[in-house]
């Protein structure tokens, strides 16, 4: 029995992955229940913005297999993979396609949410930039896209199950431990400086998404009471 393994997914990538999974479930549940949970929904959505911004940055400065350039699914690579000729480590070209689709749709989901309103008592933090009419349109897209998120997540889970049962490849364990059985070039890079840069990008994105650069709202009236008529 060969016990060799190598470093595949770095810790930030793995933390990103599991926090994102958690956040998407929480955002879906809170969004569908609505009511008093909308405030929470907005906060979770902002966390998703931070996670996505982090991942985009990490895709540039992270360790080997976290980098977008390493696994970008060019048509040639996808064709090779489908013919069974692809020889590589990390995300295979189809998996990479799924990564980019998920990231893209989630970015659109979170972005539309920032401008959305629920016609009850909740608005996204950037609602004022859009105005009511455009916000309604973006809310409808937010609603439609959420269905697409479910489809992609379902495909993602189905693919993991397919590799587990049909291909006898456990994809979950490396995403937990970071290590993959077998031999391969270990992941390099993505040190402390890169991490600081990616975290800074995430912080800036969340600040902007919260309306940090919007003109401050007019101060609320001192005593929140209304006249008697």
């Amino acid at each position, binding site marked *: 029995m060969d016990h060799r393994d190598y470093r595949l997914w770095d810790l930030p990538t793995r933390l990103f992955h599991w926090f994102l999974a958690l956040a998407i479930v929480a955002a879906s549940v809170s969004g569908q229940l609505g009511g008093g949970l909308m405030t929470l929904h907005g906060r979770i959505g902002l966390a998703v913005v931070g996670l996505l911004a982090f991942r985009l940055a990490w895709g540039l400065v992270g360790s080997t297999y976290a980098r977008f350039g390493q696994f970008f699914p060019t048509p040639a690579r996808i064709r090779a993979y489908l013919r069974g000729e692809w020889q590589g480590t990390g995300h295979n070209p189809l998996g990479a396609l799924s990564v980019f689709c998920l990231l893209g749709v989630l970015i659109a989901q979170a972005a539309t949410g920032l401008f959305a309103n629920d016609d*009850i*008592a909740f608005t996204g933090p950037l609602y004022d930039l859009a105005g009511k009419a455009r916000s309604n349109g973006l*809310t409808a897209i937010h609603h439609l896209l959420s269905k697409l998120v479910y489809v992609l997540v379902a495909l993602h889970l189905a693919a993991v199950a397919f590799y587990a049962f049909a291909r006898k490849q456990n994809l979950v364990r490396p995403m937990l431990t970071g290590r993959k059985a077998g031999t391969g070039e270990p992941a390099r890079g993505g040190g402390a400086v890169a991490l600081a840069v990616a975290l800074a990008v995430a912080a800036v994105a969340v600040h902007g998404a919260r309306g940090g650069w919007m003109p401050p709202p007019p101060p609320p009236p001192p005593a929140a009471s209304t006249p008697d008529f």
Partner: protein
Amino acid sequence: MKFKLLIAAAALVAIAGTASAQIKPEEAIKWRQSGYGFMAWNMARIKMNVEGAAYNKEEVVKAANAIQAIANSGMGALYLPGTDTGTGWEKTRAKPELWTNKETLGKVATAFNKEANEMAKVAAAGDAAAAKDQFGKLAATCKGCHDEFKIKQ
């Protein structure tokens, strides 16, 4: 005598009939949109109080009473036949199902009225935590109807 009563009753029905028929479709749409918009203002006021730093009981009572009044005002009368299309303050976003799926409409409307009445009661009692809880329940019933009968756009 009986006959006279019948005529009087028929006349009353006719007058009542024309009275509601006299609401113009675009007015009906405007009024219902206004009612909802006014409720949204009051929901925002309650939210400000239950999520903000300070709880102002009087404000929450005013807002909750306003919502309760509208909830019990018989607004359903504003869904005149044919007003599934048309423009009030804006193009109507009522789904055609609102005129056909009476059973679901009854369910969501009853749930809404119940929580609106409860909101007024809870507001009068003045407990901030209870008001926050009830606000969430009430908002969920607004959404309950919107999910079924309001077009998302």
